[in-house]
C-alpha cells in the first residue's frame, strides 16, 4: 500500500455516501460532479470527497461545500451543471438547492445554522461529513490517533482507566454500565496465561437504531483507536469487532481501516515502537437479534450457537474462551479517544449529574427531519422532536415516542418535557437502549405497536428458556386477539401477570425486557386497549380486522367525477363502478389493504 501524497485544492465538495443518500443515487451525483468539474477545467482546484453519513437523511442526497460549510440538499443529476457553474465558477451559491425550513421564506445556506444541526454537539460523530472514511490520512488530519499516542507514551493503564472513570461515560449500547468500572474489573481479573480480550459489539439489532452502522461506515478509525486505548488499559492482546450481517458496507470500511492502521504501525506488533502488541479481527454476525446480548455474542464469536448463558460469571471474569473479556458497543468506543485527548473532566462537563456527555439518537417514524443526531444528555424530548426534528408531518398530532427498541417503551406526548437521560427514561418505564427514537402520531395504534414488538421478540427469542419462549408467545396471542376485536377485559390483567413472570424469570436481557412495550402502552394508552375490546374499534384505523373501507358516493361523483383510479389499483377487484359514476366497495372481496384510500385524490374513500 502506497501513501498518496495529498494535493491542495481550493474547494472540497463533501458528498454524503451514507446508506440513505446512496439509495437516493449519491454516487450518480458524485459522477456528475466529477464530469462537470472536468468539463469546466476545474479538476486541479476542486475535489469531490465521499463521506460517511451526514445525519440529515431526510434531505438526501446531500453535499456540503468546504470552505464555507454551504449545505445543498435533495440534489439531482440535472442540477449539477448549473451548480458547478454558479457556485464554483461564479462564486454564487445556489439558493434553490439549499434547505428551506417549512415555515420560513428564505433558505439557510450554512449547515451549522440549520435547526437540525444547531443544537447538536458532536463527540462520537466528530468527523461526520468531514473525512473520507476510507482514508486514514483524513482521520489523522483531524487529530486522529493523537489520543493513542498520549495513552501509549504518557499514561499508565491506571491513569487511562481513571480518566474514563471521571468522564462518567456509561455504556451506549443499552444498559448504561459505567465504562471505567467495567475496564477496572477486567484489568483486575486474573487470567492464567495473561490472555485478555476486547470486543466491540456492533450487532446493532434494535429496529429504528442505526448509529453504530453510521459510525462504523463514516469513521471506522475512531472505533479502532478507542479499542487500542482500551486494550492498553486492561492489558488485552486481541480484539474483535462483531458487525451485524446486514451491514456489508460497515464490514468493508472496517477491513480497509484495519489494513491502513497496520500499515502505519498503529496495530500489530510493537505499536508506535512502545513494545505494545494488539490486533483486531472482524467477525460477521449471522442474523440473530439475541447475539446483541453479550454472552450470546461471545458464543457466536467462538463459532457456537448464539444462545445466552446465565450471569455471573460476567464476561469481565470469564468471557471469550473463558478469559476475561471487555465488551463495549461501537458508540462507547468512539467516545474514548476524545475523552483521553480532552480529558475526562471536559466530557463530564456535558450532560446531567448521572448521565454524562452526549448521546447519538436516530429520530425516525412520523417526524419531519428523520436522521441521526448527537445531543448533550439531558436535552428535553421537546427539543429533539420539535427543534431538531421539525415536528410531525402533515400537521398531525404527536402521540408518543418509542425508545430503547424492543426492550424499551412508549413515552406519551404528556411527557414532552422529559429530560433524556438514563434515569428519566427508566422512570418513565422505557430505557435509553441504543438510542433509537421512533416517533408516533395520531395515526399510530399503540396496541398494534405493542403487538409489533411482541411479534419481534417472540420471533427472535432463542428458545433456550421457557418464560421467554412460551411467555412471549402467550402475550402475542392475546395482543393479536385484541387487535382483531376478540379481546376481553380479563386479557389486560392476564397480560400484566404474564409480563411480571417473563421479566422475573427469563434468562437474559431479551426476555427480561420483552414485556416493556406492552407495560408502557398499558400504562399510558389503556383507553386504546379498551376501545379495541369494548367498542371493537381501532381509533387510529390501523388494526385491519376492525376497519371498514367505504366510498362516499357524493364526493366520488361530484368531486372526482368517478375517476376510476381506485378501481384500477384495487388488487382484488373489490371496487364496483365505471368511469364517470360513483364507485362502491364490495366488502366480501375487500382485503383492507388501503390502496384505494391512498390513491384517491378527492378524499372520497373513508375508513371506519
Amino acid at each position, binding site marked *: 500500500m502506497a501513501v498518496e501524497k495529498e494535493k491542495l485544492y481550493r474547494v472540497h465538495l463533501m458528498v454524503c455516501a451514507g*446508506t*440513505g443518500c*446512496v*439509495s*437516493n443515487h449519491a454516487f450518480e451525483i458524485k459522477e456528475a460532479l466529477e464530469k462537470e468539474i472536468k468539463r469546466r477545467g476545474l479538476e486541479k482546484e476542486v475535489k469531490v470527497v465521499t463521506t460517511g453519513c451526514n445525519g440529515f*437523511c*431526510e434531505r*438526501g442526497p446531500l453535499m456540503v461545500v468546504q470552505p464555507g460549510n454551504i449545505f445543498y440538499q435533495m440534489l439531482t443529476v440535472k442540477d449539477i451543471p448549473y451548480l458547478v457553474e454558479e457556485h464554483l465558477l461564479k462564486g454564487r451559491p445556489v439558493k434553490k438547492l439549499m434547505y428551506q425550513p417549512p415555515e420560513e421564506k428564505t433558505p439557510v445556506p450554512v449547515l451549522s445554522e440549520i435547526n437540525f444541526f444547531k443544537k447538536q454537539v458532536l463527540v462520537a460523530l466528530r468527523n461526520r461529513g468531514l473525512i473520507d472514511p476510507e482514508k486514514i490520512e483524513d482521520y489523522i488530519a483531524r487529530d486522529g490517533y493523537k489520543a493513542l499516542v498520549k495513552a501509549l507514551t504518557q499514561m499508565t493503564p491506571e491513569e487511562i482507566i481513571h480518566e474514563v472513570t471521571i468522564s462518567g461515560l456509561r455504556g451506549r449500547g443499552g444498559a448504561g454500565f459505567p465504562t471505567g468500572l467495567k475496564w477496572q474489573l477486567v484489568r483486575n481479573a486474573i487470567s492464567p496465561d495473561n490472555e485478555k480480550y476486547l470486543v466491540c459489539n456492533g450487532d*446493532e*439489532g*434494535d*429496529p*429504528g*437504531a*442505526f448509529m453504530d*452502522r453510521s459510525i462504523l461506515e463514516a469513521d471506522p478509525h475512531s472505533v479502532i483507536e478507542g479499542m487500542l486505548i482500551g486494550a492498553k488499559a486492561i492489558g488485552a492482546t486481541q480484539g474483535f469487532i462483531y458487525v451485524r*450481517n*446486514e*451491514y*456489508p458496507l460497515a464490514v468493508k470500511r472496517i477491513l480497509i481501516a484495519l489494513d491502513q492502521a497496520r500499515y502505519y504501525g498503529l496495530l500489530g506488533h510493537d505499536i508506535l515502537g512502545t513494545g505494545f502488541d494488539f490486533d483486531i479481527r472482524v*467477525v*460477521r*454476525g*449471522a*442474523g*440473530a*437479534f439475541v447475539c446483541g446480548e453479550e454472552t450470546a455474542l461471545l458464543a*457466536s*464469536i*467462538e*463459532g*457456537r*450457537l*448464539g444462545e445466552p448463558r446465565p450471569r455471573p460469571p460476567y464476561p469481565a471474569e470469564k468471557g471469550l474462551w473463558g478469559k476475561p473479556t471487555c465488551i463495549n458497543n461501537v458508540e462507547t468506543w468512539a467516545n474514548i479517544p476524545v475523552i483521553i485527548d480532552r480529558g475526562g473532566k471536559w466530557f463530564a462537563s456535558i450532560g446531567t449529574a448521572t448521565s454524562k456527555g452526549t448521546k447519538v439518537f*436516530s429520530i*425516525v*417514524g*412520523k417526524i419531519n427531519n*428523520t*436522521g441521526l443526531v448527537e445531543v448533550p444528555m439531558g436535552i428535553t424530548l421537546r427539543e429533539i422532536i420539535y427543534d431538531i426534528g421539525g415536528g410531525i408531518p402533515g400537521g398531525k398530532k404527536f402521540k408518543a415516542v*418509542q425508545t430503547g*427498541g424492543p426492550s424499551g417503551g412508549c413515552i406519551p406526548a404528556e411527557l414532552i418535557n422529559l429530560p433524556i437521560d438514563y434515569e428519566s427514561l427508566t422512570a418513565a418505564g422505557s430505557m435509553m437502549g441504543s438510542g*433509537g427514537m*421512533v416517533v*408516533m402520531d395520531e395515526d*399510530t395504534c399503540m396496541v398494534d*405497536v405493542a403487538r*409489533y*414488538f411482541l411479534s*419481534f421478540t417472540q*420471533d*427472535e427469542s*432463542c428458545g433456550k428458556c421457557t418464560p421467554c419462549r412460551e411467555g412471549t408467545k402467550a402475550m402475542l396471542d392475546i395482543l393479536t386477539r385484541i387487535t382483531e376485536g376478540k379481546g376481553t377485559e380479563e386479557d389486560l390483567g392476564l397480560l400484566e401477570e404474564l409480563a411480571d413472570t417473563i421479566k422475573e424469570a427469563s434468562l437474559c436481557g431479551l426476555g427480561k425486557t420483552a414485556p416493556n412495550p406492552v407495560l408502557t402502552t398499558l400504562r399510558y394508552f389503556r383507553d386504546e386497549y379498551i376501545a379495541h375490546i369494548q367498542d371493537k374499534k381501532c381509533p387510529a384505523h390501523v388494526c385491519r380486522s376492525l376497519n371498514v373501507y367505504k366510498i362516499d358516493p357524493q364526493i366520488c361523483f361530484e368531486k372526482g367525477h368517478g375517476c376510476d383510479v381506485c378501481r384500477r*389499483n384495487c*388488487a382484488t377487484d373489490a371496487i364496483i363502478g365505471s368511469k364517470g359514476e360513483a364507485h362502491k366497495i364490495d366488502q366480501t372481496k375487500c382485503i383492507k*389493504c*388501503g*390502496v384505494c384510500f*391512498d*390513491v384517491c385524490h378527492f378524499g372520497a374513500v373513508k375508513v371506519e
Partner: protein
Amino acid sequence: MIEAKVSDILNRYARDESSLIAVLQDLQEEYSYLPREALEQISKEMNVPLSRILSLATFFKAFSLKPKGKHPINVCLGTACHVRGAQLILEKFERELGIKTGETTQDLLFSLEAVRCLGCCGLAPVVMVGEEVHGKVTQTKVPAIIKKYKK
C-alpha cells in the same frame, strides 16, 4: 465443482470450530444457500459433526438450506417501516409475485423475505432487492420495482 469451491473457502480459515460460522457465511454468499453436499464435505474436512453444522445453519437467519431466487427481495419490518405501513408493502409483494414470505418464485427469479431493520430508517418504508435499497416505497410502486429486475 462444489468440492473445489468448498476447499477454496476452507483454505481461507484456520480449520477450527471458531471459523465455522464464517465458512458457512462464505458458502451462503457463493451459492445463496447451503448445499447439502458442501455441508457434508465441511463436516468431514473440519471434523465437526454434521448435526452441529445444521444446528448453526437453522439457528441463524443469514443461512438458508433451500436455493434462493436470483433477486432476493427483503422487505424491512423495522419499527420505523412498520409505523409507515411496511406490512401492507410485504403483502403487496406476496400478491404480485404469487408467493408467500419465505418462498421463491418458480422461475427462481425472486425470493421474498421479511427482515428486521436494514438501518436506513430515514427512508422508511424500505425494500432491499439484492444490494439495492429502495426507499419510501408505496404499494403502488411495487409492480414497477419487480418489473425492473424482470428484464
